[in-house]
């Protein structure tokens, strides 16, 4: 093979390779540049030149005409010379570019954007694209004011303003961009937020934790340069939203019918699989039948061994008044009911709730009546108490008089012993009867006991009861009844199926979200701490292994949108160039190089086979084609400044090697050579270079090789 090149073809071949690489690079990068340029022009046409527009107003498509008129009015009245350009309408939303006249590009105008444009009909919001500017994303609210003041002191900064969670620093000129950007970065680097995140449901006193944290790091950071900023509103909305979703899911889960599943022996329950039960309908599920409306589908959740909980996702058991025990059949994805795999218990929680509400209503309706009756009862009791007190006093008087009478009888000796005894018995019997008449069941010394009763206290109690009953009567029981009736009427509206779907929807949303737990944030200025080392310390200190610590910046410089867009275009250009390089190399290998590979293979076939077995198996022509593929592709790729994402130059070289080997192996199919003509050339004493120039290449496919050869071809 070396002989083939030594005869003089090497020079031709080197020229061919160089021209191929240069042409390949020009082709790849040129075409990619053309694409890039086309897109770039389109973008410029769309979004204007740098600084031409300051805002993109997002308007509902149907209100576009009215909005344009309003914007023209605003421009005419408030910002003469303003530019308005209507561009793309995407998904029912029109985007209108608005450029303030130079004199109106002030902090005051940009801070008051909502006031200026909120009256525009159909306005869905706006995006600030003022240029030249530097966008700082995610500026922590605790330092926003401080940062804004410092940014405005930087030379080259015109003004800065808050735009949502971001801050825009507007520059005098794009030339200052790099220097200002560096200064802003230096300022941002002075601040850090040390953040502690607690797991969901972990309740902490954030103030106390913040103090502990600041105490722990006081050796590393000057206490004067630490600030608890946990209460800042940063990201609160999302946190609150997620928490609400979780709560809502918990509520729905507790409100849904309870489903308990027990797998039959030999069956395993898998979370997410669906089981069909009869529910309260008449259709009875059976194996190998099709699913029918009226049946209830339960999704398995929370599997524990052979038991699991379930959630109804189709159908409902709202009219079930008692626990249902039913056979559960596996539901296949094609809608076929499969084997009986579990026993399912369904309990309509809402029925119990409805029952309780009904009972409450009954109670409430009777409460008013009960209060009136209770009030009467208290009044009666009070009257009885008065009568009782009066009777008691009379009894006391009577008892005294009877005692006197008894004593008088005893002291009077004119009476016989038997008479005295009879009188005494009569008097005592009379007293007893009187007492019994006033207070039955009282013991013999009951009168004394009756005297001991605290009648005033009893009266006071009665008075309290009367007052409470009056309070009860003051309650607007009817209003309560109305509201509870409304709740009762609403209860059946939420069916199991709706609940199940809602829970699934919430789960879908929550699947990609980190549910926020409690969070403590400490602003640190000019301090350096090792957050991971600190994490271990704080875990020890709080005795909580689940708290995580992060060090974050207070804001991040973001390249401006235009630069990002053009950077993206540049990446697209590089990718296209890479792909074109591959296409070009494949084409050139087939059109040009395959002819050479085929010739080499033919020449090898006329030589004696190598004595070494390994050398006999290795075809130098294919090794050569692999190397050529590698050299061409990697060089064109590099020269064209191509960059396919995740593809390194080593991978490109290997790809070239493989492409070269494949085309080398199949070269006779792509570009067969006429062996008879070559043999004639050999027999006539032509050198290899002459054979190539006069016989092989002129008969080959048109390509660079053919083109370059024409200059040297004599016949």
């Amino acid at each position, binding site marked *: 093979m070396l002989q083939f090149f030594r005869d003089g073809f090497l020079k031709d071949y080197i020229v061919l390779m160089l021209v191929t690489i240069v042409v390949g690079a020009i082709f790849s990068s040129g075409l990619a540049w053309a694409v890039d340029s086309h897109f770039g022009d389109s973008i410029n046409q769309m979004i204007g030149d740098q600084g031409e527009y300051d805002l993109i107003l997002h308007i509902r498509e149907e209100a576009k005409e009215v909005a344009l008129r309003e914007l023209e009015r605003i421009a005419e009245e408030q910002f003469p010379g303003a530019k308005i350009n209507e561009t793309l309408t995407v998904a029912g939303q029109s985007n209108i570019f608005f450029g303030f006249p130079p004199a109106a590009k002030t902090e005051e105008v940009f801070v008051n954007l909502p006031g200026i444009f909120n009256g525009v009909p159909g306005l869905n919001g706006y995006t600030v694209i003022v240029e030249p500017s530097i966008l700082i994303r995610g500026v922590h609210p605790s330092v926003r004011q401080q940062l804004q003041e410092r940014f405005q002191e930087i030379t080259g900064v015109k003004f800065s303003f808050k735009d949502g969670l971001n801050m825009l620093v507007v520059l005098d000129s794009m030339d200052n961009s790099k220097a200002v950007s560096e200064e802003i970065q230096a300022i941002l680097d002075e601040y850090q937020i040390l953040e502690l995140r607690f797991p969901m449901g972990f309740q902490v006193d954030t103030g106390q934790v913040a103090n502990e944290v600041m105490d722990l790091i006081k050796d590393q950071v000057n206490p004067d340069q630490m600030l608890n900023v946990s209460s800042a509103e940063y990201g609160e909305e999302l946190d609150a939203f997620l928490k609400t979703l979780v709560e809502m899911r918990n509520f729905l889960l507790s409100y849904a019918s309870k489903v308990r599943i027990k797998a039959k022996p030999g069956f395993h329950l898998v979370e997410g699989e669906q089981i069909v039960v009869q529910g309260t309908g008449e259709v009875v599920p059976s194996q190998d039948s099709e699913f029918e409306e009226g049946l209830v589908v339960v999704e398995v959740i929370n599997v524990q061994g052979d038991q699991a909980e379930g959630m109804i996702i189709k159908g409902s058991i709202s009219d079930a008044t008692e626990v249902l025990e039913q056979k559960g059949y596996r539901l296949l994805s094609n809608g076929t009911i499969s084997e009986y795999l579990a026993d399912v218990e369904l309990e309509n929680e809402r029925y119990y709730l409805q029952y309780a509400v009904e009972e409450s209503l009954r109670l409430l309706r009777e409460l008013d009546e009960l209060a009136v009756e209770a009030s009467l009862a208290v009044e009666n009791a009070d009257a009885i108490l008065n009568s009782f007190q009066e009777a008691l006093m009379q009894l006391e008087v009577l008892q005294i008089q009877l005692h006197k009478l008894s004593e008088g009888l005893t002291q009077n000796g004119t009476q016989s012993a038997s008479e005295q005894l009879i009188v005494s018995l009569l008097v005592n019997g009379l007293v007893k009867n009187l007492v019994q008449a006033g207070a039955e069941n009282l013991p013999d010394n009951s009168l004394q006991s009756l005297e001991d009763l605290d009648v005033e206290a009893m009266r006071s109690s009665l008075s309290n009861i009367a007052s409470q009953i009056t309070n009860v009567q003051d309650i607007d029981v009817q209003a309560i009844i109305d509201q509870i009736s409304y709740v009762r009427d609403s209860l059946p509206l939420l069916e199991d199926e709706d609940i199940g779907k809602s829970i699934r929807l919430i789960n879908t949303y929550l699947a990609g979200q980190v549910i926020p737990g409690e969070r403590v944030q400490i602003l640190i200025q000019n301090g350096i701490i090792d957050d991971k080392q600190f994490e271990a310390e704080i875990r020890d200190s709080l005795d909580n292994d689940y708290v995580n610590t992060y060090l974050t910046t207070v804001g991040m410089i973001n390249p401006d949108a235009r630069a990002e867009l053009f950077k993206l275009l540049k990446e697209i250009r590089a990718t296209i160039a890479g792909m074109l390089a591959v296409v070009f190399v494949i084409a050139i290998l087939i059109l040009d190089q395959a002819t050479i590979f085929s010739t080499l293979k033919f020449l090898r076939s*006329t030589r004696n086979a190598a004595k070494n077995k390994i050398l006999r198996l290795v075809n130098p022509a294919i090794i050569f084609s692999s190397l050529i593929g590698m050299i061409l592709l990697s060089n064109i790729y590099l020269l064209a400044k191509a960059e396919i994402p995740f593809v390194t130059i080593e991978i490109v070289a290997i790809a070239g090697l493989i492409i070269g080997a494949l085309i080398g192996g199949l070269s006779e199919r792509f570009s067969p050579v006429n062996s008879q*003509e070559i*043999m004639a050339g050999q*027999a006539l004493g032509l050198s290899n270079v002459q054979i190539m120039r*006069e016989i092989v290449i002129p*008969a080959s496919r048109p390509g660079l090789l053919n083109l370059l050869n024409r200059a040297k071809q004599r016949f």
Partner: protein
Amino acid sequence: MLQIRDLYKSYGKQVALNGVNLDVKRGETLVIMGPSGCGKSTTIRCINRLTEPDQGSIVVDGKAVLELQGEALRAYRRNVGFVFQQFNLINRLTVFDNVIFHLVLAGVERDLAEERAEQALRKVGMLKHRHKKPTNLSGGEQQRVGIARALASNPDLMLWDEPTASLDPILVGEVLEVMEELVRTTQTTMVIVTHEVSFALKVADRIVLMDQGQIVEAGSPQAVFNAPKSEIGRKYQKLIAG
């Protein structure tokens, strides 16, 4: 002029030449005959190194042909005319260019080359077709162009590799006529591989019979065909007698 000694060639396990020894005198017309696959074509292809033998030596005018490399080999080949069975013309070139191009590439002055080409074409009766492309010619005409191409370099040795094997019988005659004429009118040493027995009888100074990669018999046409010593010779004798 040509000495071949102990020439061996095999393709894998198939032996093509199994110790061929041959001498050809200057001006001699040697016809090699034998059944297909006996090694005739391989022998003459080895002579101009279109096929590389595995072993042996070939000496032409004192030059060890198998040791020639590069320009020396090419110079040797330019002095050996080769006529192919399949003509092997360059299809994209005209008849005239097919005859002239190798001369020009070898450094012969264009005028001289053209003169020699015209002479060669005239000899084979193809001058009138000089502007045609080979694809527009009959097989016999193409072969005559092939012969003219070989003649144009005024070779000392001409090798003919079954020049009529690819032609239909009607066209064979015109090529054999040309060949006979050449043998008669030139002093060029010729080694001809052919199956044409009558042609061999007419033109050969000596006939060599080959079988299974070996020379089995050699001698004058009369000796070989009248009193053959080999099996192949006897078969040819029967063929002539029949």
